[in-house]
């Protein structure tokens, strides 16, 4: 067979046209790609930010929906590329710190963020804005666990053999809870290993996802789990019998943040998006539906919700961010132990 000149030209034309098309589309209307979780988080972004706040500015938001791990992998894979595929990336504080350490994130120019001044002081970072936050608590079923627990250590009570459940994806915070119960700390998860093995012999159960764990809590298969307060709030709303306690050993904060990848192609739109995420009405919407706390000083919560999801002043004072540098170095070991020893 001979490839004719005409066929070659036609093929080249099609290739050129299709390669040029995405660029053309971007040029016509202002667009930004936001890397986010799906489910409630993505939906709330759409309802409270993408449509009511960005559309009037003539900015079309495209959500790139995935879990945090694939999003991190994508950022790492693209970090050498001149033009990235994401303009805003949403991640937890620990993950965001890891991505900043890998040099994938823009240092934010606060003069381009109108709302920068309203961010809670303790949550400010050079590479990301805080979007919402919550605390790690111990959730328990009050019908089954009749003496309310006070600490992570209560999970090791032989009374609760086979009734402690873990979400597999929260291996790091699960190990943290065990470490705290074993006398470790924010910068020392080592004691968690022996404690986890102890809990393993007490038939602790591991569920593949938060949703599977929720189903097990609902079916009263397990009665206790370390979890984000906000998740506990959502699950209570879904009529799963649950109460929470901020464990006496320590209060671990989780902040969900948003940053701009260095190779974003629409930085102006990305800054506008971060600004919108900090607007009080968007912040309250997340509190109302998902139970996360606002990260700006001027967002007020309806008292009913505030009562359920807020921390007392004493709890708030004990709240601490994880030791990011320690986690960056120890992450591999924590994951290996969780997979190879605890779950084996």
């Amino acid at each position, binding site marked *: *067979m*001979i*490839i004719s000149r005409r066929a070659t030209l036609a093929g080249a034309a099609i290739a050129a046209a299709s390669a040029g098309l995405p660029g053309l589309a971007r040029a016509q209307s202002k667009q930004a790609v936001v890397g986010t979780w799906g489910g409630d988080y993505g939906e709330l972004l759409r309802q409270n930010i993408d449509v009511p706040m960005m559309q009037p500015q003539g900015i079309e938001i495209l959500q790139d929906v995935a879990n945090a*791990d*694939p999003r*991190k*992998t994508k950022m*790492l894979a693209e970090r050498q590329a001149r033009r990235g595929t994401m303009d805003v990336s949403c991640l937890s504080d620990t993950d965001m710190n*890891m991505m900043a*350490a*890998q040099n994938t994130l823009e240092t934010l120019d606060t003069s381009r963020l109108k709302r920068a001044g309203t961010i809670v002081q303790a949550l400010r970072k050079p590479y990301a804005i805080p979007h919402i936050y919550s605390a790690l608590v111990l959730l328990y079923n009050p019908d089954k666990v009749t003496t309310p627990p006070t600490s992570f250590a209560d999970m090791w009570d032989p009374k609760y053999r086979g009734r402690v459940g873990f979400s*597999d994806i929260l291996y790091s915070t699960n190990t943290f809870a065990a470490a705290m119960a074993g006398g470790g700390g924010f910068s020392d998860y080592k004691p968690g290993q022996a404690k986890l093995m102890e809990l393993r012999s007490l038939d602790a159960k*591991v*569920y*593949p996802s938060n949703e599977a764990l929720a*189903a*097990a809590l609902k*079916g009263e*298969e397990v009665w206790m789990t370390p979890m984000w307060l906000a998740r506990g709030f959502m699950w209570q709303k879904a009529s799963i019998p649950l109460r929470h306690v901020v464990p006496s050993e320590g209060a671990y904060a989780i902040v969900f943040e948003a940053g701009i990848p260095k190779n974003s192609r629409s930085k102006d739109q990305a800054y506008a998006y971060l600004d919108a995420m900090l607007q009080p009405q968007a912040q309250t919407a997340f509190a109302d539906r998902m139970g996360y706390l606002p990260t700006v000083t001027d967002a007020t919560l309806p008292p009913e919700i505030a009562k359920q999801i807020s921390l007392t002043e004493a709890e708030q004072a004990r709240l601490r961010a994880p030791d990011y540098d320690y986690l*960056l*170095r*120890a*992450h*591999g070991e924590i*994951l*290996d132990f969780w*997979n*190879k020893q605890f*779950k*084996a």
Partner: protein
Amino acid sequence: MAALVLPAGILVLLLLVAPLLLLFRISLNLFSPTEMMVEATTAANYFQAVQDPYYRQVLLTTLAVALGSTLLTLGLGFPAAYWLARMQGRAKSFFTILVIFPLLVGNVVRAAGWLALLGNGGAINAALLGLGIVAAPLPLLYNTGAVVAGIVAVVLPYMILTLSAVIEGIPRQAEEAAANLGAKPLAVFRRVVLPLALPGVVAGCVLVFVLCMNTYASAVLLGGPQFKMMAPAVYDQFVRGNNWPFGAALAFILLGFTLVLTVAGSAVLSRRYRR
């Protein structure tokens, strides 16, 4: 004539060979928690994987599940393929479509179906509990059995279609002649049908075995967090651990084992029945 393979060849070169070479290069690098990847030329990741009892166990589980599922699929698929191959007319088209039908549903969706069936609150347990046959839900999910069931349901159509295409080519008269000469049905199957269908058996088994070795969705969703096969272990290293070099090494070990076993397996089978 060579130009005919050019488009496919270029595609394979760009989308398969080039990434594989890149992946191989990555597998020779070293991991660093702070820098992620440090340029190096070392086989350390391969040694680490082979020396670690955990990954040896993961590989063994993968081999056992893949081999078991392939044999089970062959056992279930052969009679169905034979029946389909000997069918005539409209019924044949109807049943062929029926065999293809499960392929229209993605693996994840299919696994979700199994979850709804086998879960503690799933259909089977709900029925057993409702009828008072059991007092507590049976642990049907998150074990090897559930994974094998999930995999077999995925790969069975491939086996049936491959086998029936070959069996169709075996003339009916060959079987009739053997029966005429006094062979019992089992002897006809063993001495006539099976040897003639062997190319199909080999092709079907290779296809199915490769798919089984690379199982991801069924292993993760039906095996649960404690069950590990190679593909999820590779994903874990890349995506959860950010350890690309080690993940790449695991991927090549999986690729190597799959390649060696399929080549060796088909060679042994073909030689055995050629005699």
